[in-house]
């Protein structure tokens, strides 16, 4: 069938009937629509006002950390409370956006994809590192949603933390593919077995949100420690069979350094908070084992 057929009438409501057309209509369609909209809005406001007393049932209470070094009233850190109407399926990010757009446009936080792929809204929500966009309010046990910036990172403003150190640690592990032999022909692939791809699969999922590093006690005390995200990144390349043995040795040397894998005390906090379910602790343990093996071979 051709695609150029007319779908059956779909817009009956907006189509005026002949009778309606015959009637004098002084206002433009835009005016009419706006008037209708204003009426709808007034209606909604009335309903909302009426509903006010039991907002308790259908509202979320957000307690949000506030701090802005530049603004006098906010230079002392404090918590602000917002009450926003609850909707089914609402996430913590939705609630924050609602609070910002409705009550206080200075409320500051990072966000973009709202689907757990950009990693920008890792926050400390009810005492745990989570992505705001991935956290359903209904899934939180408390009546109050407490939102703070990621711990152990400098706060720039409100919920925004400084990520520079995190990025530096990521870059310290040479987070890019390196191989001795590249194909001459621009159309030639470097084959990788499905098993090897499977092996590195989980490690490639990292979205650089920083939740893991923020949850790690060791990283908190020791600025030099590479931290779980960077080590996971190192794992991703060290385990990729396409890089070759020589490169793997170089990578193992990086990871075995003083500030590398040996600092990890297997507390699993990183693994517990990772929104991408990356088995971070397992990867770190595996690298430790590899390190022992390669040293044995070396001697």
């Amino acid at each position, binding site marked *: *069938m051709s*695609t*150029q*057929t*007319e*779908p059956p009438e*779909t*817009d009956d409501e*907006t189509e005026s009937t002949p009778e309606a057309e015959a009637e004098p209509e002084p206002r*433009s*369609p*835009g005016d009419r629509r706006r008037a209708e909209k204003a009426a709808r809005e007034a209606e909604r406001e009335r309903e909302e006002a009426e509903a006010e007393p039991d907002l308790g049932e259908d509202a979320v209470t957000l307690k949000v950390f506030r701090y*802005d070094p*530049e*603004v006098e009233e906010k230079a002392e850190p404090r918590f602000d409370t917002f009450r926003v109407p609850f909707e*089914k*399926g609402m996430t913590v990010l939705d609630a924050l956006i609602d609070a*910002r757009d*409705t009550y*206080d*446009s*200075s409320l*500051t*936080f*990072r966000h*973009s*994809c*709202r*689907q*757990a*792929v*950009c*990693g*920008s809204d890792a926050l400390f929500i009810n005492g745990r590192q989570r992505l705001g966009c991935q956290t*359903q309010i209904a899934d939180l046990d408390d009546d109050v949603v407490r939102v703070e910036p990621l711990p152990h990172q400098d706060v*720039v*403003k409100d919920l*925004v933390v400084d990520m520079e150190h995190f990025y530096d640690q990521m870059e310290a592990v040479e987070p*890019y*593919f*390196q*191989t001795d032999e*590249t*194909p001459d022909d*621009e*159309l030639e*692939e*470097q*084959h*990788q*077995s*499905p098993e090897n*791809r499977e092996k*590195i*699969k989980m490690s*490639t*999922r990292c*979205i650089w949100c920083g939740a893991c590093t923020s949850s790690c006690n060791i990283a908190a005390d020791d600025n030099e420690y590479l931290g779980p995200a960077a080590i996971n990144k190192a794992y991703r390349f060290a385990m*990729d069979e*396409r890089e070759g043995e020589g490169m793997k040795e170089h990578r193992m040397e990086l990871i075995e350094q003083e500030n590398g894998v040996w600092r990890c005390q297997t507390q699993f906090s990183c693994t517990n908070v990772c929104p991408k379910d990356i088995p971070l602790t397992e990867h770190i343990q595996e690298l430790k084992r590899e390190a022992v093996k390669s040293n044995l071979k070396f001697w």
Partner: protein
Amino acid sequence: MREYDVIVVGAGGAGLRAAIAAQEAGADVAMVTKLHPVRSHTGAAEGGINAALREGDDWRDHAYDTMKGSDYLGDAPAVEALTRESPKETIQLENWGMAFSRDEDGQVSQRPFGGLSFPRTTYAGAETGHHMLHTMYEQVVKRGIEVYDEWYVTRLAVTDEEEPEERDCEGVVAYDIKRGEIEGFRARDGVILATGGLGQVYDHTTNAIANTGDGVAMAYRAGVPIEDMEMIQFHPTTLPSTGVLISEGVRGEGGILYNSEGERFMFEGGYANNEGELASRDVVARAELNEVNNGRGIEDEYVHLDMRHLGEDRILDRLENILHLAEDFEGVDGLEEPMPVKPGQHYAMGGVETDEWGATCVGGLYAVGECACASVHGANRLGGNALPELAVFGARAGRHAAGDVDEASEITTGWSEDSEEGENVSPVALGEADLPSSGKGALADGGRQSPSGDSDPAVDAQGAEGVVEHAVQAERTRVHYLLEKEEGVNHAEVRSELQETMTENVNVFREEGALKDALEEIREARKEYQHVTVEDPSRTYNTDLIHTIETRNLLDVAEAITVGALARDEFRGAHWRKEHQERKDDEWLKHTMLSWNDGSPGLWYKPVVLEGEAKTYEPKERSY
């Protein structure tokens, strides 16, 4: 002022690839991006990258499919560049270590996608974009390319000649989000815009909140024509509550669409007797809405997409990410139940007019990726064709800006001999609304060198530096105005009104009255925007200010989409018009162009280029 050979604005797939190519061609490159590169929306792409890699496939077939998919509104030289170079770019990514899904023999896997005559969609699970974005960023780190992340570009610094074709882009003005300082960036050789999509014009979209069409709006105001803006793709499978995308990969692997009566309507309803669920996106999106509008939707809103029969192993192997998305954002277990889906805004086929090297008619200004219109997607983009576009045109523009290309282009840019004047279609004046005061206030962001009233006489720098300095000055004035203004409207109010209007009136199904209503309402929103105010007085990380400037860009973009939709009185690809139910090849084998002209936008047309190197693409009926 900071100075580089090439400045890339935006660090998604297109920007990263452009930066790498420019640097390889010897240029000193900087990237300026409002989000850290790995936060770019390319990371959300799921399905895959089309490339004719295998025996039995040929780039010419890919070109043919793309031209047909575009409903003959694509320009053949650009389409052929895309399909010819996609294999090379895809393997380049593989050579950079990208973790593609693999066949048993270790080769990269490919799968079928809508509108393709060969299963040529190369993928990495259902998170292809994530892998592509990270792989490219890794290469940028490796090469030590300078990245200014969380710097928001607010304006292009363009010379003041009367005709856009005579202007030059000398650099950009950017706002350092963390410190709140406005600075100039001078580009000796070229500025490459790679600012991505504009989905925030609608309220139900697969796009990120940061996809606000900044590049399109800035180039437009600097005098560069914008092309085929009415061509908005609505993806047939988005989750109803959030707009989160369920990849076409699900249908590619064999997922089935059902209506509330349990009918497999793509076949049973006769929408696409041959291809069924794998017909092209516009066809499937209309079919779904049709079912819903005729009472066969579920909860009057959506249809079901079922993948249970594919089996757990296959789903986990190729579509695992989809399970997480359905679970996290809709509370549905895709292994146990069908997923609810409905159409949502997804992709802008139109954008900044460029040739097949990404160059615009303004000297030294390029655009690539979703913000650009080369035009490879015409009236309908095939799934899996945007990611290769980022790589192919990113690389081409990077090389060209760095001066490494001496081939002429076949696609013309700017007003030329075969351009044709358009008639005014809008019931209201377009562009700037009356200004609140003698200063240009919130609207003071034309793209050319600022009018003398705006600039500080203390800034007397001459030449290219002067152009950048003046632009910096104009931006400082605007930001100062926005921050100082006392009482007013919050941008969020204007933004949500705009999104509602667009969703109501300029959606999948379009009709004249509604389009005119939309233009009137956009006009109202413009007037309201003049009273916009930024409440947050802080310089540190002032997102209130950023969102306010973005909203201005959304206004311009929304208007352009609607004007194009009203002008094009035919049915082509994604553009369906109630009053015009046929493709009118005699009249409409041409692009709609809109030029800002210092605030009084004008509509004009330029012909489609159907003649390619491989063949001339004769328009045929598009059936699937």
